[in-house]
């Protein structure tokens, strides 16, 4: 539901780093526990970039799985639902290793023509 706002934020950051050059591809890393609907993000991206310098720029979404590590037995568990419990020993004393990422990883920018 807030994908439009997220796309506005992505566009601002990308424009700042584009340095006036054309940007062909943007990669974002989004953790499994973030509430982002990929189709909505893509739709918002096309809607907001249409007719701008970023029109046609590819938005690539790198989905990062949610993984916890158990402090008791050391096992790592990949989670679908957000139940923070170790699958090996049922301990809830766990740390979240990944799954909350919300990052603009990189942009592919045209090299400056010399």
């Amino acid at each position, binding site marked *: 539901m807030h994908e439009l706002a997220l796309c506005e934020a992505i566009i*601002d950051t990308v424009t700042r780093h584009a340095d006036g050059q054309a940007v062909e591809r943007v990669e974002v890393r989004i953790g499994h526990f973030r509430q982002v609907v990929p189709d909505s993000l893509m739709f918002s991206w096309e809607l907001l970039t249409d007719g701008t310098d970023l029109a046609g720029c590819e938005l690539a979404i790198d989905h990062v799985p949610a993984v916890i590590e158990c402090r008791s037995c050391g096992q790592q568990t990949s989670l679908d639902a957000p139940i923070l419990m170790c699958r090996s020993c049922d301990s809830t004393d766990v740390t979240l290793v990944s799954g909350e990422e919300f*990052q603009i990883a990189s942009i592919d920018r045209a090299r400056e023509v010399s």
Partner: protein
Amino acid sequence: MGRFHRHPDGAGHDHHHSDVGDHSGYLETGTERVAIGENILAENDRTADRNRADFAGAGVTTVNLMSSPGAGKTTLLKATITSLGEQLRLGVLEGDIATSLDADQLGGLGAPISLVNTSAGFGGECHLDATMVRSGLQRLPLDQLDLLIIENVGNLVCPAEFDVGQHARAMVYAVTEGEEKPLKYPVMFRACEMVVVNKIDLLPHLDYDLDQFLHNLRAVNPTAQVVQLSARTGEGVDRWCDWLVATRTPPQSVGEGSRHRRARRHPPEGRDRD
């Protein structure tokens, strides 16, 4: 695993890639990959930090109050202002997509209200972000407040993602919403230090398993504090107010009246200018 990976032409493909370098084959001559590594909400977070600094400067504690539509935020706020009005100087920043209905309900209770309608932009934002809160702060006498409650837009998804500079996050959950909500909206339930379980006066009329709800809540957020209350009858509202008063402790640790002395943090050469 890369669970999804789509391109604007509609073609989707699944593949695993351990790092962005795997994509080097995409690069054509003439482009360079620039690593950014910036949080998508970095700009919002910077504004939230400015809000936080302003709150600290004015000595006001801020609570971001969230819930689904109709869970009872406004009714709880009315009860809160009535109950705490004598003890604390309260202010409310009221976020709503449109209309001033909630703000009107809270008017006349003695607390300054600042209304932020989020309907500018694309048909109405579903949340308050740090910039919207910042704009609403201009209409509040921060220096004359002890506690500011930000009533966020009724929505269990988006408000959880946006830091607005608050000291604590609380949510109002109504028993009429069902036991499974923490599992369906884990980001919201994980984001909050305080979960108010509202409308408990309705429990005799509902097929509702409170223990099951608490179990689900613990599964996603083992440390959240819980207060069960009825904003309508007033039962339990005192325990919510106690929690609000307790959130005031950290910013006040410098001592009462610290807001008037905040300029003297580093007296030069040990010379105390006061």
